[in-house]
C-alpha cells in the first residue's frame, strides 16, 4: 500500500515539474534549423578528417612505393656496348695448346682495350685512354674469358661482342647524367659523351636484362654488384632463426597454454614474453654482441650469430601467436581425447597441435618476415662487412638483404641508388610473398568451431 502511495506522490510531483517546464521545443524555428545545420556541417567535417587521415597514410604508402619503383626499375637492365674483338691467338694461347689453364690466364683485359683503341683511333693521350677504358666495365674481361673457355674455336676470329659497360656510362645511357650541364659538374667529360654519342649512332649501345644483379655477390663496382650473396646470407640467417625459434616457441606456448600451473614461474614467464616483444631491436643486438661474440666467442659476421640474435627477437611473436592458436581449439576436442584414454601429452600432440598448426604457422611466417626485414641488431654483430663471396654455410662471414640495402644506400656512386632501390624491391617481394602465404594459410585453414 505504501508503494502505491509513493508512486502516486511521484506522479503528482512529475506533473508539477512538467507544468513548470518551458513550452515544447519548436523544431521548425530558424534557431534550431541553424543549429542542426551547424551540427551536420561539423559531422561532415569530422568525416572528412577521418577520410583524409586514411588518404594521408595511403598517399605516404604510394609515394614510398613510387619513389622506390621509379628509382629502382632501371637497375634490372644494364647498358652493354658492342665492340669488335679480335681474339688474337698470340695474346690468348701463343703455343696453340688449347689448354684451358693457359687460356684462363690470358690477358682478356688487353683484348678489350685493344678493341677500344681500334674503335676510337683518334684517342692518343694516356689520360684520354684511361677514360676510354672506363666505357667498358672491369668485369667484362671475365665474361670474355668465360666465353672463350666455353668455345675455344673463337681464338683467331674477330667477332662483335656485347660487353658490360662501366657504371658512369650506364648512368649516362639511362639518362641520370645530364649532358647539358657544365662539364665540371658532371661525372663524364665532353669527350666521353662524344664517344657515347658515336657508339649510340652506330647502334653499338644496348640495354639488356641484368641477370648478374640476381646472381653475383657484392662488389665495389656498381655494375658488377648483385644481391645473391646477401640473399644467401639472409637464407642461412633465417634458417638458424627458424630452427631455433619455431620449436622453442611452440613448446613454450604448449606448456604455457596446456600444462603450466598458475604459479609464480608462469606469471614471470608471461610478463617477460610481453616485455620482450616490445624491447627495441637494437638492444637484442647489444645482447648478441656481448653474449655470443664476447662471451661465447662465436665468429663475427656469421649467419649463426645473426640467427641466434633474431631467434630471441622472433620468439615472443611465435609464442603469442601459437598461444592464441592453441587457445582457439575448443575444449571438447581435448575432453574427447582424454575420455578415450589418451594422456595429456598425447592429447596435445595428436589433436590440439595439428588443429592449431595453421595458426602457429601463420604466426611463424609473420615472425620470419619481421626477421627478414630486421637490420639494426645485425649491425651490432658485425654483419655489415663488405663481403664479395657467396657464403657457403652458416659459419661463413655473410651479410643479409636489409644490411646490403643499408650498405649500398651509404655508397657514394650514383649507380648504387638504383641498385639500392632494386634490392629494396626484391626484399619487399619476398616479404609480400611471405605475408601472402600467411594470409592464404589463414584463409584456407581457418575454422569456426
Amino acid at each position, binding site marked *: 500500500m505504501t508503494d502505491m502511495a509513493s508512486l502516486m506522490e511521484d506522479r503528482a510531483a512529475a506533473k508539477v515539474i512538467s507544468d513548470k517546464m518551458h513550452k515544447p521545443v519548436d523544431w521548425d524555428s530558424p534557431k534550431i534549423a541553424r543549429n542542426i545545420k551547424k551540427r551536420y556541417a561539423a559531422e561532415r567535417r569530422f568525416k572528412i578528417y577521418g577520410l583524409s587521415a586514411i588518404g594521408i597514410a595511403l598517399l605516404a604508402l604510394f609515394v614510398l612505393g613510387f619513389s622506390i619503383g621509379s628509382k629502382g626499375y632501371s637497375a634490372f637492365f644494364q647498358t652493354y656496348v658492342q665492340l669488335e674483338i679480335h681474339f688474337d691467338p698470340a695474346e690468348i694461347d701463343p703455343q696453340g695448346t688449347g689448354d684451358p689453364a693457359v687460356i684462363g690466364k690470358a690477358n682478356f683485359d688487353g683484348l678489350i682495350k685493344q678493341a677500344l683503341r681500334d674503335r676510337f683511333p683518334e684517342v692518343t693521350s694516356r689520360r684520354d685512354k684511361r677514360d676510354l677504358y672506363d666505357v667498358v666495365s672491369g668485369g667484362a674481361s671475365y665474361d670474355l674469358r668465360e666465353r672463350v673457355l666455353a668455345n675455344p674455336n673463337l681464338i683467331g676470329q674477330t667477332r662483335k661482342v656485347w660487353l658490360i659497360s662501366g657504371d658512369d656510362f650506364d648512368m649516362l645511357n639511362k639518362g641520370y647524367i645530364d649532358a647539358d650541364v657544365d662539364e665540371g659538374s658532371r661525372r663524364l667529360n665532353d669527350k666521353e659523351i662524344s664517344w657515347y654519342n658515336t657508339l649510340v649512332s652506330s647502334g653499338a649501345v644496348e640495354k639488356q636484362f641484368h641477370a648478374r644483379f640476381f646472381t653475383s655477390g657484392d662488389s665495389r663496382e656498381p655494375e658488377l654488384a648483385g644481391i645473391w650473396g646477401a640473399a644467401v646470407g639472409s637464407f642461412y640467417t633465417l634458417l638458424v632463426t627458424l630452427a631455433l625459434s619455431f620449436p622453442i616457441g611452440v613448446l613454450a606456448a604448449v*606448456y604455457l597454454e596446456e600444462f603450466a600451473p598458475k604459479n609464480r614461474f608462469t606469471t614471470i614467464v608471461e610478463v617477460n614474453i*610481453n*616485455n620482450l616483444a616490445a*624491447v*627495441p631491436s*637494437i638492444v637484442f643486438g647489444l645482447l648478441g654482441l*656481448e653474449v655470443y661474440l664476447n662471451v661465447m666467442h662465436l665468429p663475427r659476421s656469421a649467419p649463426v650469430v645473426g640467427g641466434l640474435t633474431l631467434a630471441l627477437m622472433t620468439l615472443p611473436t611465435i609464442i603469442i601467436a601459437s598461444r592464441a592458436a592453441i587457445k582457439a581449439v575448443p575444449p571438447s576436442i581435448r575432453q574427447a581425447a582424454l575420455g578415450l584414454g589418451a594422456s595429456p601429452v598425447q592429447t596435445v600432440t595428436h589433436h590440439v597441435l595439428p588443429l592449431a598448426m595453421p595458426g602457429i604457422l601463420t604466426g611463424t611466417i609473420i615472425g620470419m618476415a619481421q626477421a627478414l*626485414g630486421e637490420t639494426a641488431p645485425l649491425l651490432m654483430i658485425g654483419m*655489415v662487412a663488405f663481403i664479395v663471396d657467396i657464403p657457403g654455410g652458416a659459419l661463413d662471414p655473410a651479410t643479409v638483404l636489409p644490411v646490403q640495402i*643499408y650498405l649500398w644506400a651509404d655508397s657514394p656512386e650514383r649507380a648504387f641508388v638504383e641498385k639500392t632501390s632494386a634490392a629494396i624491391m626484391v626484399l619487399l617481394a619476398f616479404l609480400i610473398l611471405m605475408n601472402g602465404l600467411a594470409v592464404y594459410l589463414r584463409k584456407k585453414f581457418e575454422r569456426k568451431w
Partner: protein
Amino acid sequence: MSLSFLLLAVAALCALSFYFGRQRAVALSGGRYSNLHSLPAHYGTYVALWCGLPALLLLLVWHIFQGSIIEAMIIAELPSEITGDSGQLSLALNSISLIAADNGQHLTVSPEVIDAGHRLANLQSIANAALVVVMLTGASIGVSLSYRKISPDLRARNNVERISRWVMIACSAIAILSTVGIVFSLLFEALHFFSKINPVDFLFGLEWSPQTAIRADQVASDGAFGAIPLFVGTLLITIIAMCVAVPVGLFSAIYMGEYASSKFRAVAKPALEILAGVPTVVYGFFAALTVAPFLRNNGAILGLDVSSESALAAGLVMGVMIIPFVSSLSDDVMSQVPQSLRDGSYGLGATKSETIRHVIFPAALPGIVGAVLLAVSRAIGETMIVVMAAGLAANMTVNPLQAVTTVTVQIVTLLVGDQEFDSAKTLSAFALGLVLFLVTLGLNVFALKVVQKYREKYD
C-alpha cells in the same frame, strides 16, 4: 667437423636409437602390444631422447665455454709485454686467430705470436675432436643405459612425458633467460663504463663527443660523455613522429571503425598494414633520399635553411611508420567500448561525430593513452630510420630543421667497426643501451597497466 654435420649426425643417431628401442620393445612384447606398459613408439622415443639430449646438452655447454677457455690458455702462454697492455693484447689475439685460420702470411708479428697462432689452430682441432668424442660418449652412455632398461614393465610413456615436460619448461624459461641476458650484458658493460665516467656527468652532461684517443700518443679530445644532447635529439624526433602518427592514426582508426563501409575497410585496412610491414631500412632510404632532399629544396624556396639531415625528415618518416601501430591499437580499444553507450548517445539525438567525440573517445581514452605510449616507446627505440636520415653531430637544439642525433644512432656508430672493450667510447654504447632499455621497458609496463586497467572496466 662442422656444426651442421654434427647436428645431422646426432639426428641420425636419434633416429637409429628410436628404431632399435622400438624393435626391442616389440620383440619383448612377443607380438602382443598389450603386454607392454606403453606403446612401442614410446620405448623408441625414450631411447632416442636419452641419445639426443645428453649429446645436445654437451654440445651447448662445450660451445659456451670453448672460446673463453682456449683464449685463456693462449693468453697464459704469451709473454708479459703483450698481455700487459690490453690494446696490444687484442691486436695480438686478432693476429693469432688470423694465423690459426691460415690467413696470416702477410702479417709481420713476433715469433711468439706466430707460435701462439699455430698453437691455437692445434688447440682448436683438438677441441673439435674432443667435442665429437665427448658427444658420442654422452650419447652412447645414454643409449646403453636406456636400452638396457627397456622391459615390458618400463613406464616408458610416463618417462617420456616427464622429460618432455621439462624440455617445455626449459623452452619457456628462455624468455626469462633472454631478459636476464639483456639486463646483465647491458649492466656489466655499463658499470664498466661508469667506473671510468661519473654517471652524473653521463646523465646530465651537456656535451657529447665520444672521440677518445685509443693510443696514448694520439692527438684527440678527451671525449665528453654528456648524454643530454642525445636525449633531446631523441625526444625531438619522437615528438615530430608523434605529431604525424597520433592524429593520422587516430582519425583513420575512427573512420575505419565507425564510418567506413565493409568494402572500403577490406581494401584500406590491409593497405595500412603494409605500412607496418615495410622494413625500417626501406623507410630510412626513403627518408634520406626522397624526403630530406624534398624538404631541403622546398625550404630553400621558402628561404629556410634546412639541414640535409634534418630532424624533420627522420621524424616525418618515422611518424608514417608508426601510423598503423597507433591506428590498429586504438581501433582495438574503441571497438571495445560497449554498443550500449553508442546506442544511448544516438537515442539522445547525437550525431555520429558527437557520439565519437563526447562518448566513445572519453570512454576509450585510457586505452588510447596506452597505445600512444607504446608508440612513443617504439619511436624511441627505432634505429634504422634515424641512422640513415638523422645526423651524427650531437647538436643541442629543438629546431626541427637542423640535424640532431639520437641514442640509437650513437649506439650504432659507436659499435660498428672497431671496438675496444676497455675504452669509454665503446662502453658508452652499452650505457646508452641500458638507458634505452630501461626507458622503453618503463613505458611499456606503464602502458600495459593503463590498457589492462581500462579493459577490466567493461569486461
